[in-house]
Each structure stands twice: as C-alpha cells, then as structure tokens.
C-alpha cells in the first residue's frame, strides 16, 4: 500500500490542504482585483461563506435538463484536480504517486472538458456559446501548454514528474515554465482570456444555469485549479533538496505569488476576442515549436 501516495492525495498537497488553499487563493484573486480597482475587497473567509451559502440553496428543477449530469461535471472536475494535486512532486525523491507529465496534463485538462460538456448539458444558448469558445480556446492554449511540457521533458531527457521537478540551469526548462505560465490565464478563464465565461456577454457561459451546490462545486473546482496549476509551476522552480517543511512553505508562497500576479494582470487587461486569443497562443506555439526542435537536435548531438 502506497502510504506516501495516500498522504499526497488526502493531506498535502491533496484534499486537506488543497480545499482551504483553493479558497485562500480565490480570496487572493478577489483581493488583488479589488486593490487594482481601489476597493478594500472581501474578508479572508468570504469564499468559504459563499461555498456554505451555495450548499444551503435549493436548486430549482428544470424541465428537459438531466440534473444528475449537471452535478456530475463539477464533481468530476473536483476529483480530477485532487488527482492532479496528488501527482505533484512537491517533495521530490520522498515518495508519492509515481506519474509522468502526460497523466498530469490529462488530469489538468479535465475541468476544461467538463466545462464544455456542462455548457451543452444545460441546453442554454449562453452555455453552448461558452462551451464552443472554451473548446476553441482549449485547443489553442493546449498547443502551447503541451509544447512547453515537451520542451521541459526534452531538455531534462525525461517525462517523469519527480525528475523534471526542481530548479534547472537549462534555458529550455525556463522557457517551458514561462510557456506554462502563459497558459494558466486561459485555463482558469481569467482576463484577457475570459471569453468562455464572459459575464457581461454570455452570463458566465456554461455556468448560467448552475445554482446551489453544483455551482458551489464549480467554485471549489476553480480554487483547486488555482492550486494545481500554480503548484505545478512552483514544483518546477523550487530547488530540490532541503527540509520538507521548507519545500511546503516555498510551494505555498510561490503559488500565492503567481495568484496575485495573474489576478492583477487579469484586472489590468481587457478581454480578448476569441480570434485575438487564438492568434496570441498560435504565435507562442510557433516559437515554442522551434525551441523544442532546437532542444531535441541539441540533445541528440550532445548525448
């Protein structure tokens, strides 16, 4: 029995840590946006209050919509994010689930797929438009995301997460980290890539028809996405070695710094049109593709 893996899944960075950390990161997001708009912003426990309030709300039944399917998509998103968190090599070389970057990418992509399916399940016009936008944007940003991971894997000569984790002096590693950072706003549907959930245009897209506990689960999945994606970047830049508690502190601090930075950029930018967002990611995809090819050729001749 993999005790270390269970600890990763249930304690840190899994369920027990990730759920409160997700609310904390969502609070950081709202607070950063508020400060950019010169407001005080919400109190620390506001995301928890919102979640409890949503759990207590009665969800009206809608004719022609499968309520079980509506509940399934956010629940799947939460579970896949917990799985992704359990895979993160926060303490490299100290056990945990053994997985590679491909499995992590698949798990990180699940909320996006669930978001698309939720949009079509609701039967709402706004939900379907949001789902289509998410699908198109997902293709564009995943090209950069995958190429970034491939760049890191090629430069480190492995796809194993525990081996690619940690600080590296290889420029390919840093280019890959930068590429992943570029994709996080699109994966979290933050400005300027918030086209799938544009509140003013399509009323949050697939979430239009959501209320009560299922909406609360979506909010929780969003918090867990924050933890998983920023945590992934943190594991790639925190140097290996040193005590485990220092790793844990550095993991939280670096992740939260990313939350603040990305939220402030989100507040300071306007929403891209779908075409502009796709153009942005394809431009970076082209750059990364050249760098991956160059890295592969370099690795071939070196070794």
């Amino acid at each position, binding site marked *: 029995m993999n005790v270390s893996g269970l600890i990763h899944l249930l304690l840190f960075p899994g369920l027990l840590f990730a759920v409160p950390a997700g609310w904390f990161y969502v609070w950081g997001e709202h607070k950063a946006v508020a400060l950019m708009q*010169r407001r*005080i912003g919400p109190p620390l426990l506001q995301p928890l209050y919102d979640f409890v309030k949503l759990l207590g709300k009665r969800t009206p039944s809608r004719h022609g919509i499968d309520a079980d399917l509506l509940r399934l998509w956010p629940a799947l998103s939460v579970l896949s994010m917990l799985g992704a968190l359990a895979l993160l090599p926060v303490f490299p070389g100290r056990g945990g689930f053994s997985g590679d970057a491909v499995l992590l990418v698949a798990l990180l992509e699940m909320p996006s797929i669930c978001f698309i399916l939720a949009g079509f399940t609701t039967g709402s016009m706004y939900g379907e438009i949001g789902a289509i936008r998410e699908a198109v944007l997902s293709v564009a940003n995943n090209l950069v995301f995958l190429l970034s991971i491939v760049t890191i894997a090629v430069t480190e000569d492995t796809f194993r997460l525990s081996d690619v984790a940690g600080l590296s002096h290889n420029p390919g590693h840093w280019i890959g980290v930068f590429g992943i950072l570029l994709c996080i706003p699109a994966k979290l549907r933050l400005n300027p890539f918030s086209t799938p959930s544009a509140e003013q245009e399509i009323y949050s897209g697939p979430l239009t028809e959501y209320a009560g506990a299922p909406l609360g689960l979506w909010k929780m999945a969003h918090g867990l996405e924050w933890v998983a994606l920023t945590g992934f970047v943190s594991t790639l830049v925190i140097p290996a070695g040193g005590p485990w508690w220092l790793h844990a502190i550095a993991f939280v601090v670096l992740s939260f710094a990313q939350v603040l930075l990305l939220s402030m950029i989100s507040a*300071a930018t306007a929403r891209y049109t779908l075409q502009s967002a796709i153009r942005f990611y394809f431009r970076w995809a082209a750059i990364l593709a050249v760098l991956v090819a160059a890295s592969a050729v370099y690795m071939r001749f070196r070794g």
Partner: protein
Amino acid sequence: MNIFRLIFDNLRRGTVSFPLPHKHECTSGEYRGLIHNDAERCIGCGLCAYVCPSGGIEVTRSGDTYRWSYDPGKCTFCARCIDRCKPGTLTMESKLPPLYGEQGELKQDLDMVRKRPVRPVVAAPAVAAVAPSKVVAETPIEPVENKNPTA
C-alpha cells in the same frame, strides 16, 4: 511595460472604499435615506401609502385611529411619498440606513389619532373685492425717506 506600471500605480494609490460598518459619514445632503414621519403633524390621509409603488408604506384605519407602517426592506427610496405629502410631515434622512440581519427589523409602526386636514390659510376675500388687483398695481409707491443721509 505599461501594464506593470498601471498595476504598481493602482497599488500605490491605496483604497477609496470604507470597511463596513463604516465610521465615516459618506453621504451627500441629498442622499435618500430612511423615511421619517412626524406623528404630531400627520393627518392620516393615506396618500403616501396610495402612491408608494413598492408597498413600503401602509396605512390601516379603524375608527378615529390609524396605524402608519413603514418597511424600509420594501422601500425603493423613490421619494414619491415625500412629494405627495400635503402637510409635509414626511422627510428623508440624509444618512445611510443601519445594517440589519432580520427581515423587517427596521420596520416602524406609528399609532395615531386621525386629525382633520389642515387647510391652507386663504387671504381675506373682502379686501380683494374692494381693491381689485388693477387698482392696487396702479397705486404709486411712495419713496421711503432716508432718515440717515450719512449711512
């Protein structure tokens, strides 16, 4: 990198909003706050309840007494009741309403005895009949003698 300068400037300038419950009086003189009824002058005509679009004011009569009820939870602060109040007994507070947690917590009930409507004072008609306006207008105005020429 204009975006980072924008972020830095916004952080440096600080916040302009107040935490709740606030200690600052942040309303202007024309702020539409809670409605206050002067029970001494209210005649119980019920016009305020009649024109209230949201049902925030209710007047229930029983004989010579009546109850004037005001629920700020229903009030839209449109001030139509203020405009229609003939004796001018209704006024609006210019400060923020207090925070409340229970529905109907700020509701007010005033039990009053119904009074006869106060009619505005009309000028004595006899004077107008004897001295028509035309005659009054043509009467020359005597200049006021200046008793203090040095001033």
